[in-house]
């Protein structure tokens, strides 16, 4: 798919769209390309602990925008592999400790770039090694996953583990039934899920729990109408979505809420046109990128989740994304 849109047009298909319904594709591409050229800003160094996540967010956004080659593939693969530890885990950047969050991002990047071959060429048995690192973080008693050797647990890690293991083709290394049991233990009366048993329902954690159940093939355990009802109530009058009752809207929830709705076949329970308009309103029309809310500072995290949301909403010109 190719996008033929000049600066200030975007959307790819229809330049007759009113200004507020346009996606500034070229500006977003340039914004993402600029992210690694900001070494003269302190912020660049203070966020090194997110480098690999940032690369994943930027790369995915570029793929969705129809510019998969805007970041040089070999440099990306080199960087990712430079974050790999002997343990099979990845750190956020070279010299940073291995952690589930970055290991998942690394696996996702390698899968997106079809680079598992590059991995095996440089690290023999690399796939299996990474999968083993992840599998070893499962708690055999509860079924959930730790982030690293320091044993902090969160449903984010459980989802990340299953996601990465399914990409690596090594789900066989973990106890999927136990993991599913743990997700069930995090369920609340309102149909949602929290960070752990007893915790309040939160749209981000719902995404991780529904994503995990979906990978495990156990969406039959979900009360779709109840959860769909709760998720649909995240939409506010301005079209944006919040993460919990009585909280403000935020672009990152466009992805977590909408993809969860899509996984349980309830995406039509929200006003998709209004959500699209809300996401578009958070763009920086001058320098590219998307923010949490209109008029705020953009960042690659919200740029990724906003564009992923638009893709889920089938915005013209964007590549389609898998809700999981």
């Amino acid at each position, binding site marked *: 798919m190719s996008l033929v849109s000049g600066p200030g047009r975007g959307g790819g298909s229809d330049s007759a769209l009113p200004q507020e319904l346009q996606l500034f594709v070229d500006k977003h591409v340039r914004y993402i390309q600029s992210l690694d050229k900001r*070494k*003269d*800003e*302190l912020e660049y*160094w*203070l*966020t090194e*602990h*997110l480098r690999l*996540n*940032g690369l994943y967010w930027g790369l995915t956004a570029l793929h969705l925008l129809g510019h998969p080659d805007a970041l040089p593939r070999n440099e990306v693969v080199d960087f990712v592999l430079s974050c790999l530890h002997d343990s099979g885990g990845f*750190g*956020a950047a070279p*010299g*940073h*400790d291995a*952690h589930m969050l970055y290991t998942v991002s690394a696996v996702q990047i390698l899968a997106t770039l079809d680079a598992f071959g590059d991995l095996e060429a440089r690290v023999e048995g690399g796939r299996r090694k990474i999968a083993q690192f992840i599998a070893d973080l499962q708690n055999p008693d509860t079924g959930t996953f730790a982030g*690293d050797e*320091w044993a*902090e647990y969160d449903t984010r890690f459980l989802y990340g583990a299953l996601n990465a293991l399914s990409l690596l083709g090594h789900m066989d290394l973990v106890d999927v039934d136990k993991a599913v049991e743990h997700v069930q233990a995090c369920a*609340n*009366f*309102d149909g949602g899920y*929290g*960070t*752990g048993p007893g*915790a*309040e329902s*939160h749209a981000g954690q719902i995404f991780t729990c529904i994503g995990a159940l979906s990978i495990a093939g156990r969406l039959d355990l979900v009360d779709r109408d109840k959860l*769909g*009802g709760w998720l*649909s*109530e995240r*939409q506010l009058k301005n*079209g944006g979505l919040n993460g*919990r*009752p*009585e*909280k403000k809207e*935020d672009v*990152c929830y466009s992805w977590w809420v909408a993809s969860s709705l899509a996984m349980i076949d*309830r995406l*039509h*329970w*929200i*006003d998709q046109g*209004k959500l699209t308009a809300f996401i578009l309103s958070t763009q*920086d029309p*001058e320098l590219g990128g998307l*923010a*949490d*809310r209109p*008029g*705020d*500072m*953009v*960042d*690659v*995290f*919200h740029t990724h989740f906003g564009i992923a949301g638009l893709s889920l909403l089938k915005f013209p010109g964007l590549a389609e994304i898998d809700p999981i």
Partner: protein
Amino acid sequence: MASHGVSRVAGSQTRSDLAREKELQQIARYNELVELVNRKVAERQYTVEVLSLTTKLLTENPEYYTIWNHRRRVLQHLFLSQTEPASLSSDKHQETLDFITADLSLTTSLLRQYPKCYWLWNHRYWVLQVGEARLQAVAARKLWQGELQLVTMMLGADSRNFHAWSYRRFVVGELERIPAQPNEVVPSKQSMVEAEFAYTTKMIKANLSNFSAWHNRSKLIPKLLDERESDDVARRRMLDDEFALIHEAFLDPFDQSIWYYHQFLMSTLSSRNSRESAIILDLTDTDRKRYCEQEINFIKDILEDEEDCKWIYEVLIQYSTSFPSLNGNESIITADDLREWLSKLRGLDPLRHGRWADLEYTLGL
């Protein structure tokens, strides 16, 4: 990299040459410190000096998780290098306590600035757990009690901070576990469910929109009743009291939190409700019908003053259709009622039109 609520204008100003120069110096200084800490840790210099270097770096960047890990490595080494268990010698005990207290005060001051930083909450929990293994039970318990105060302060600043609520549940778990008296072989029953239940009441009275507090309450009530060994009369009284509390809250019927809590109470009436979230244990169909009618009638009354509140129509339809015992000849709800409520709902809540269309189809209206 994931900024929230920062205005674009403030960030996009072009820097003057002077500001640029200053920033480059800051970067050089910061990277020097990073390099120094990483090098010393790589050389396994697990010393008090390196500990204070990590303090400096983490104060500049509390999200740098690897440095928190380095700090843990240093602390572990310092604890282990003590030749005898800390709990036996008062000098060593004090030294251990000092290390722990220092880490607690570091993370307290950082939490005030960064209340949603995962690593800060994680580090606190870690340092207390490690410390507990090396401290006398009385001292350890005192530290955990301090945590309850800290988390109360954090929830005072942001009553919806879910990190703080999770941490609160951890702390309560620890306090319930550690013996209250030294040398106690079998810890006496020291449940905090009553106190935590009272805390949610306080939080709710301060702000009815605090769904985090309502949520915690929904988890505490079944435990509370079990611990009180409540009989059937007491259990029914609890449910009645909770309904009364939420009826008061209905003064602002546009608040989602109270409707969710009402839905929780109603869900305990369902025959599919699990034992661990039960309020009344021996519900009969007559009970269900009575409670359901009582609530539906109460909500219908609110409707008279609040015609534009979509939640009213939504729950009326939900409750009328999810309790089969309401059906039959004496039903207080007719198909016409449902049709009217649904059409109101569609008019008031067009955002979710797809959901109402599905509902209409499901109900066969």
